[in-house]
């Protein structure tokens, strides 16, 4: 990042340093851009669109760039953003938002950038996130954190090294029902935990064998593939246009992690929060074998078993303790045994977990205070690790022992080889 960041803008201008600033300071009145956090977004698909809309409406953020490997899409949302800012300022036109196809060009061009939101397919999380940390930008990155174990570890390390305010998009942490459930568990309200149930989908297909389609003219397919193994264009992976649902890149191991990573990044995350395992993980994992082992099963060092499956109708994460059950899901779903636990209150001496009422705002607040947000890259990495271990167990079909401290399998060389996926040159992490 250049020295002309938002935070030292006033200092520079006071010194009479001339530089091109994208928006005149008067444009936004009290919320002048110099007081705002200059942001950009990478990936404007189904998820990114929501983020972009939120960013444009946020009084503390100023969007400077939109980046997508589909040039037409990037331009469309750039124009949309400029129109919105023009409407806000009551001016006929506004051109402060620029579009990019390549995030590297965006980082190099937008020198006053403070922070970036990454909402790309999974195989494209690691590289821009690490590059952003190294450029001194703060990062909001969609879940699951890294597409491979190696990537998410590299992201967490880069964030720690560069003091990045890094929020992983596992936003259930900022939902009061999930927090309450985790606090009940952490405070021993259901006694010693015996098992945890996590209701998520299955693993992805290991090889994307979709038919080749005709590539849209304004899509840079080579860049969409990026570090992942090459294959011809498929509209299933990246539809043309700018208004579509969630494309199914998630269904294929090269680009996503199936339902296991998609909701695993949420529900494993809550499970680990309740267990106090944010800086650790299970010690073994075994995939279902169609015979004796019915569920993907993890074991923690303290003997707690975590099963992938549903324990209570409608649940997402369910902790079973010696004295009761706590089960949570979205839509304020809370099931407890005994029922009275739902009215439980916490007092002095109880463990109070990090309280973030709004995941995105928590990140924005962190940028200003430098306080770690609720779901740091390290937490995101530990959650993603649970997904990675599950995926490797599915692929190898045998019980794997894991050392969460050194983060290596202790009984399987082949499993360790799968912790990392080689990147297509020239990409590397």
């Amino acid at each position, binding site marked *: *990042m250049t020295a002309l960041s938002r935070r030292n803008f006033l200092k520079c201008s006071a010194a009479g340093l001339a530089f091109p600033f994208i928006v005149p300071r008067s444009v936004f009145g009290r919320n002048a851009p110099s007081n705002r956090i200059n942001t950009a977004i990478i990936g404007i698909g189904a998820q990114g669109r929501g983020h972009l809309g939120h960013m444009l409406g946020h009084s503390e953020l100023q969007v400077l760039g939109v980046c997508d490997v589909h040039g037409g899409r990037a331009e469309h949302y750039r124009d949309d953003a400029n129109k919105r800012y023009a409407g806000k300022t009551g001016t006929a036109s506004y051109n402060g938002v620029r579009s990019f196809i390549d995030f590297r060009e965006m980082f190099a061009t937008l020198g006053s950038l403070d922070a970036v939101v990454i909402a790309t397919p999974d195989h494209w999380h690691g590289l821009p996130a690490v590059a952003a940390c190294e450029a001194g930008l703060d990062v909001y990155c969609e879940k699951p954190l890294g597409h491979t174990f190696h990537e998410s570890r590299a992201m967490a390390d880069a964030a720690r090294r560069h003091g990045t305010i890094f929020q992983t998009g596992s936003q259930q942490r900022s939902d009061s029902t999930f927090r309450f459930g985790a606090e009940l568990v952490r405070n021993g309200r259901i006694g010693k935990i015996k098992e945890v149930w996590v209701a998520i989908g299955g693993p992805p297909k290991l090889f994307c064998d979709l038919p*080749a389609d005709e590539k849209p003219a304004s899509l840079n397919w080579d860049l969409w593939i990026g570090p992942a193994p090459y294959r011809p264009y498929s509209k299933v992976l990246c539809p043309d246009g700018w208004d579509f649902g969630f494309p199914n890149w998630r269904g294929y191991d090269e680009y996503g992690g199936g339902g296991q990573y998609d909701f695993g990044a949420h529900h494993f995350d809550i499970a680990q929060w309740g267990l106090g395992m944010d800086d650790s993980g299970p010690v073994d994992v075994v995939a279902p074998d169609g015979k004796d082992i019915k569920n993907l099963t993890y074991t923690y060092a303290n003997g707690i078993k975590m099963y992938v499956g549903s324990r209570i109708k409608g649940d997402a994460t369910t902790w079973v303790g010696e004295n009761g059950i706590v089960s949570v899901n979205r839509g304020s779903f809370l099931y407890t045994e005994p029922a009275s636990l739902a009215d439980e209150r916490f007092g002095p001496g109880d463990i109070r977990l990090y*309280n973030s009422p709004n995941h995105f705002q928590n990140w924005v607040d962190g940028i200003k205070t430098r306080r770690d947000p609720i779901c740091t890259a390290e937490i995101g990495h530990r959650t993603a690790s649970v997904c990675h271990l599950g995926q490797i167990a599915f692929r190898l079909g045998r019980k794997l022992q894991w050392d969460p401290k050194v983060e290596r399998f202790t009984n399987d060389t082949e499993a360790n080889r799968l912790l990392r*996926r*080689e990147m297509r040159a020239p990409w590397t992490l």
Partner: protein
Amino acid sequence: MKTFLTLLLLAAATIVRAADDPYAALPSLDFGKPNSMQAIWDEARATTPSGHAAIEAKLLKAATTPGATFACKRFVADMLRVVGTTACLPVVLKWLDDPQVADSALYALQGMPGKEVDAALLTAAPKTGIIQALAARRNIAIKQFVTSADPALRRAAIAGLGTVGTAEAAAILQSLKTDGEAALIVCAARLLKDGDKKTVLAICPEQFRNTTRPSIATAALNLLVEADANAAIPTVLQALEDKRGDVALHAASAARFLPHGVTRDLCSTFPKLTPSVQVALLCTLGLRGDRTALPTIKAALASADDAVKTQAIRACEPLADESLIEPLLALAAQNTVAQETLGRMNLPTLDNMMLAKLSDTDSTKVVSAINVLRTRANRKAMSSLLKLAESKDKTVAQAALRALDGFAGQSEVVALTGILQRADDRNAVARILWAALRGVSDKDKRFVALWQLAPTEAALLALAPEGGGTESFKIVKANLSAGDVALKEAAVRALFAWKEDDMVEPTLQILKSTTDKKHKALGTRALANRLTERKCRIPAAKRVAMLDEALTVLDQPADKKQIEWAKEKLAEKK
């Protein structure tokens, strides 16, 4: 048609062949065509590593079949990523020269154990990907490319030395000055992970001092703190006033990891810092939990800068000191952050102090105490809150009512019913009662229970739509003809707010019989909304007839327009 049948037959033949030997179909593997991959994955999954050599051999045979497709080679490479041994080198190394499958070759080779793999990669024609693979294998031999004439190879080698992460790699990167500084940071992090603190402590202070790049300086500082927090103290203190980019902010953040004794020094620098660095340092002082920082934090509570003040309030929570309660309480009447902070502060004496404040003569303090006790969900406050809900001081009464909402439970129902009869704001009390009965999960039954508490109370009847069931609706209908004006009005409003089709007929009747313009307007809107609702189960034709019927009794243009709108919407749905 003929071509289609031929293709179909070929596909079927492939499947049949695959069923017998999944490897036979592999050379022609292609995107969008039936394939035998699942059978191979299943076989690998069912085989222990000792049996993987056989699988490797079959994969290599398929991949070397003349005409083997790109998809086949990519699939084989991905399988070799797991089962590959040096036995595959003769095949895979050749792929490195083929631009189409060179990447696939590296998938197979990069993680493969064996010195032979390193040797083979080093003898291959140098390429970025090969250097990256060697770097991932932490092979220092890539240093030879640091002086390469090819800029791509040179860049790959420099970045790669960071990944190699040895003292030798660090020395080379240091000698490259600016060109090597980003990789040197990665290298230092690797060294630290491997336990070589000595080298890190030699690299980082120099990096911190010499670089002009704020992100490099920040990383050097953070690594220094991680390597030896004691040794890092002078650098961090000095960095709080660093002028390079955001380095000072990061220093404030890194200070959380410094040893206990440094708090006084951090506080002494506080007044000299910019407000944004003060915010970050206050956050750190809170997280450090060292009460030596109390005077600085208390002073910051009075800061003229809102951001500094807010962060000072937040910093109070982890410190949890009694001396912070009064200043926070003074802020809590207006400041929700102060309320939350007191609400979450882990201080056993705080609850009794707040309970005592409930009888304070200063109503501002009483309101603050109410808010804090509510946040702390302290049930000991319940009886006081019930009393304060009837306080003559309206601000206090409103605060108490707000606090009781969702907090009062079954045990408070009797007392609340009494308050209901006397309250000015009966709707607020009715809502509190509704929430107090939350233990009755069936909402229809809950409303019946609520109604039985005071069966002539209009404010309760207004909650009937929350009940939403048959019994609740019966109560509403019965009161549509109530003699009491307020009760009848509440019943009409409840009917209009009803979210089921039952409301349609009685609403229509009201529209026909009433002369009250407001009722006509509200009833018309409710009817139009219900009949155009997606969940409305009344047959479409009947809905239109009902709207037409309503139209005949309406005289206000706005009401008629509402009905016309509904008819148009229904026509659109058709």
